[in-house]
């Protein structure tokens, strides 16, 4: 009988493609390979761990500024329920003990010609392959008045951590009868259904603790991910606690004023003690420095290898990529990391990467014990990612509560599994 830990490990290694009988790689090209990965989220950490097992002789360095990672998925539950932020935190201990070098610093420059990365502390890391998994940066000033300083007053909480704590503390300080405002940007942005899960969790909080308060959602769009399912849940659970305004109802905002806690639309000014501004986004800044982002602010990639379309030997994975219809999700980042790692391992061994079938799953909570989901299946042939017709889609409308409860349990299981694969 194999112990639980051993079984999980063997399974994981099996999925990574390590069978009994596999041999260590001693080929010159592989053993001397230097692989630098920038960004220790779901993408970067998953890529580092898989490459470390596929190419045990390679020197793999993960550059990450934070000593611990704070995961975004499930952070909306921190806002709306008693879930502690500590449940979102993951260390890099497992990566370190797996032989991956962690450079606890910020990458500030990339020289794609001479192939090295410069860190804020002055260190240079030469690479044969660079994998960028920089996530998102917020576009400060894209909304007039929404600066980095304004975010200390009007939190975005779109990167989990201190911003999540700030928004939670503002909700806790809200008086019954006062309102909360959330603004939602146009697509594309990290986690398409995320704002609506957050709306559900904030509404749950208000219903339970500030019953005379409500959440006003000002949306730059008229359609959103899992829209009918969210609206069904809102009508059932939060009829008095969510007011959603799409673009057609003057939902798009033009300006914020942090000094007066106000947001402005074309025709309206709304003030509230708590304003959660989810601003427009772009690829993390290192993507611009490395020359892998285009005029959209995001990174075009080859969908088979996730190599940049703009720079050789630099791969980009996760939220920073242009991978639509594959969404900017933790699931996508984790899978793109694995597909990219396999392509890099093959390429360093002189074997061409090959196309495959990719997938995505995103769960969203509508109450603390009910969730809905969206799934997609994608081909990466023909130079682009494309949805497989007849597959994917959302949870059924009008489903029994047991279906919603089952998806909430599956969501929890998913979080446990994917974080174990990425961080150990």
């Amino acid at each position: 009988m194999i112990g639980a830990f051993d079984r999980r490990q063997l399974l994981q290694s099996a999925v990574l493609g390590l069978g009994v009988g596999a041999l260590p790689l001693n080929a010159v090209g592989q053993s001397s390979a230097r692989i630098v990965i920038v960004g220790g989220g779901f993408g970067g950490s998953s890529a580092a761990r898989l490459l470390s097992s596929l190419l045990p002789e390679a020197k793999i360095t993960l550059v990450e500024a934070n000593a611990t990672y704070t995961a975004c998925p499930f952070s909306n539950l921190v806002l709306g329920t008693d879930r502690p932020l500590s449940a979102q935190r993951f260390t890099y201990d497992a990566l370190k003990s797996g032989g991956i070098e962690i450079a606890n610093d910020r990458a500030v420059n990339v020289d794609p010609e001479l192939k090295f990365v410069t860190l804020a502390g002055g260190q240079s890391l030469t690479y044969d392959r660079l994998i960028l998994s920089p996530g998102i940066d917020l576009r400060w000033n894209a909304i007039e008045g929404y600066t980095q300083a304004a975010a200390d007053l009007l939190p975005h909480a779109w990167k989990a951590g201190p911003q999540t704590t700030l928004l939670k503390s503002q909700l806790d300080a809200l008086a019954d009868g006062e309102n909360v405002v959330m603004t939602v940007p146009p697509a594309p942005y990290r986690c398409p259904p995320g704002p609506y899960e957050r709306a559900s969790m904030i509404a749950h909080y208000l219903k339970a603790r500030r019953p005379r308060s409500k959440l006003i959602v000002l949306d730059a769009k008229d359609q959103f991910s899992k829209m009918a399912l969210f609206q069904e849940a809102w009508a059932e659970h939060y009829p008095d606690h969510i007011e959603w305004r799409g673009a057609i109802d003057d939902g798009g905002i033009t300006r914020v004023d942090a000094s007066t806690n106000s947001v402005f639309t074309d025709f309206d000014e709304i003030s509230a003690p708590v304003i959660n501004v989810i601003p427009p986004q772009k690829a993390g800044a290192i993507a611009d420095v490395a020359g892998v982002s285009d005029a959209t602010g995001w990174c075009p990639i080859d969908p088979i290898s996730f190599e940049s379309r703009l720079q050789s030997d630099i791969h980009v994975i996760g939220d920073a990529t242009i991978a639509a219809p594959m969404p900017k999700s933790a699931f996508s980042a984790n899978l793109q990391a694995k597909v990219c790692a396999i392509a890099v391992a093959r390429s360093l061994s002189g074997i061409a990467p090959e196309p495959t079938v990719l997938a995505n799953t995103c769960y969203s909570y509508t109450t603390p014990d009910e969730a809905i989901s969206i799934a997609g299946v994608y081909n990466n042939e023909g130079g682009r990612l494309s949805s497989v017709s007849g597959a994917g889609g959302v949870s059924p409308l009008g489903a029994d509560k047991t279906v919603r409860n089952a998806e909430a349990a599956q969501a929890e299981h998913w979080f446990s599994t994917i974080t174990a694969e990425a961080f150990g």
Partner: protein
Amino acid sequence: MRNPKFQIILGSLSALCLAACGSGTDTSRKDSVADTAARTSSGALMASACSGCHSSDAGAIASFEAYDQSGLEQRLLDYKSDENGTTVMHRLARGYSDADIALVSAFLSEMRDAT
């Protein structure tokens, strides 16, 4: 939070490989390349979509270990053909050809049997 020991054990993937494979074996570049080809095969690549949700831990999401090759293949085909299914797996299975399902099932069961 997780047991730190658990994290360390899980983190030792490269160590596991060396232990499982027997370290110090001389392999020619040709063997090594063939090995990389095997470990990054079509089946391994396609099955990499599974491990974000499925592990050896059974629970709200099924474990791989519950099925042998034919059992797994049949289960996936059932998901694919069940028009009334409500789970993510039903919607995902519809995107895979029967040949894809056979490939993934063969890979996962091979790895399961190898352990």
